[in-house]
């Protein structure tokens, strides 16, 4: 097979780019430690969430600066998040456990890289650091029914001293 010299160069450059792109993703995982949502959250029976840790969803402290947040997504709200904001302190490491009680939803904290699917029967586990006080919007970004566009919430990162003062 005859391959033109320019085409050989082009193919080599393309392969180099491909390998480079794979290297950046690998670096992202090994260097800064960006992990993917995976099967670590386990499964759950979407029909009887009341009998699981999702029965009383919300924030719990698990270590000095470590928190867990259980969130249930359902048509058309986040529990917690929609009727009252999710509140966590600044300078904390927060692990979210997110599942759905009915159809597939999305959980996107707008302007951050917290962005996962909420699939009934599965638990999405994602750990993030919140360094600074801030207010974020939470959006359901997967179509979930006729009022999908109303499904949103808030996440508030409060200053560390205020958070302990609340005693929550």
């Amino acid at each position: 097979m005859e391959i033109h010299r320019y085409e050989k160069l082009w193919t080599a450059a393309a392969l180099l780019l491909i390998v480079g792109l794979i290297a950046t993703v690998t670096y992202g995982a090994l260097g800064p430690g960006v992990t993917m949502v995976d099967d670590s959250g386990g499964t759950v029976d979407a029909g009887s969430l009341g009998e699981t840790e999702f029965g009383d969803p919300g924030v719990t402290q698990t270590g000095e600066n470590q928190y867990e947040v259980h969130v249930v997504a359902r048509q058309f709200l986040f529990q917690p998040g929609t009727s009252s904001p999710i509140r966590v302190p600044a300078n904390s490491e927060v692990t979210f456990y997110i599942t759905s009680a009915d159809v597939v939803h999305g959980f996107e904290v707008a302007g951050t890289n917290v962005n996962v699917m909420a699939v009934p029967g599965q638990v999405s586990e994602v750990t993030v650091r919140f360094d600074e006080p801030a207010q974020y919007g939470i959006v359901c970004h997967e179509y979930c029914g006729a009022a999908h566009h109303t499904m949103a919430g808030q996440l508030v990162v409060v200053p560390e001293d205020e958070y302990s003062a609340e005693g929550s």
Partner: protein
Amino acid sequence: MAYVDDFPTDARIVRWNLLVAFTALGIGGLFGMIQALHRTDVFRGFVSSADYYSVLTGHGVLLALFFTIFALCGLFTWGVTKSLDRPLPSARFTMAWFGFMFVGALTATVTILGGLVPSIPFNADVLYTFYAPMQAHPAFYTGLVLFIVGTWMAGFDWFRTYWRWRGDNPGERIPLQTFMVLVTMLMWYISSAGVAVEVLFFLLPWSLGIIESVDPLLTRTLFWYFGHPVVYFWLMPAYFIWYTVLPKLAGGRLFSDPLARVVFVLFLLLSTPVGFHHQYTDPGIPEGFKFIAMTNTMFLLLPSFLTAFTVVASIEHGARQRGGSGRLGWLRKLPWDEPAFAGCALAGLMFAAGGFSGIINAGMNINYLIHNTLWVPGHFHLTVGTASALTFMAIGYWLFPQITGKRLRLRSVATVQPYIWFVGMTLMSNAMHRAGLAGIPRRTAEPQYDAVTFQGVVGGVSEMRLQIAIGGILLFLGLMLFLLVIFATWLGGSRTAPLRVNGTLPTPLSGPEHSPKILDNLKLWTAIALVLIVLAYGLPLSAMLADGLFAPGSPPIPV
């Protein structure tokens, strides 16, 4: 002699496929403009926000499945019969597959429109991805099954035409156009098996109440096993045109037949074991398998890079034959006033941009930033919405006269139409990408929330909305002009004047005699493709099945 004179029966089926395709394009395009105006809050008078999702479902299904695949069937029937120089063996069988596809598409479409028309007692507001446990009316799933069975029969029709040709021509190389059709269909058989299993074994019986629950993650995974290769099923007919017709339109010849074959083989191998890149942010799938899908996806860039080289080299050769010179000066000698050429070339240019935004989608960890945001539809409106759609429209200007025997009418309208599409898509797509970076979600009627403020990374949100709305209007205008030209040609033209176009395709600069015989070994490539799929999907699928076929289960939730 035009194609219609040589192959009257086949010309009729090509015509019907293209007419169904372009009708679906017209309806789906209207829906698209309604969405562009609705979600940007420029005009919300067409439908309520609850009905927006019926429109969105119609837009996705009509354009991504019916428009593209009917167009593919028209183009592939033309390509097979022409390159093998023999008609499809049985007009009755050909009508049967067209009938299956048409009845299936019509059934699904009526069910979707039931969401907008209260007198139709069905609906299927489940979007193009129909994720369980949202449940559509069983008629929707039945329509999809009929449609897909029709495509399988169509593939068989092309294969057996080839087998008969092979009987008469032992030892000859498979003609390039037929090679592309066969390889694409092999990819389609392998990948559409996923959605067939999803619908036939799970969603259809579940919607009929025969089984109580399905596993949402398993059905999603089966969908995306099919959902990425279907992207290439839209794109391969465009590649088929870019490789085999575009060089002629530019005044030249295909640069390399062997590399064209290599590219199609790579697509057969790599299109399917990548589906998890649509599920990077899904729970329940081990990270390692997401990583495998990511590397396969990155290597899938290679055939598109090779295509970029070959297509540009072929066009440049054409321009130089026409007297073009200089490093870039040859560009001026290209027939930019020929709508078929201009449309294909602009489609290729936009595909390059879409390819780069696709690299971001493929980057597993950076995908967190843009997953399910408006970035993603911004991306695929460059790929399926332009690379495929604009190529199919452009080649319509060239092919329609040949399958009807009528000269193209309203040629001046046709000449400006690809540019209108290009400008409209430039406005809409760039703004959608930037809106995605700001975190604005896709698939929503009203991406405006009391509790959420989106910060534009480049530009402001209101400016993005305006560009999306104007772009959507221009695209719809371009679409109407296209349909005007096609229907004026079809209904109004006469067969008296000789055609200005002909279907003779020049031989490649480097022909099949330079391409290794192993490239035509379809069994070998199919076997390797299956091995790659087992590696990518075997373990995660068995893990999903290990806790039971229907567990963790969800009952249907009709929407």
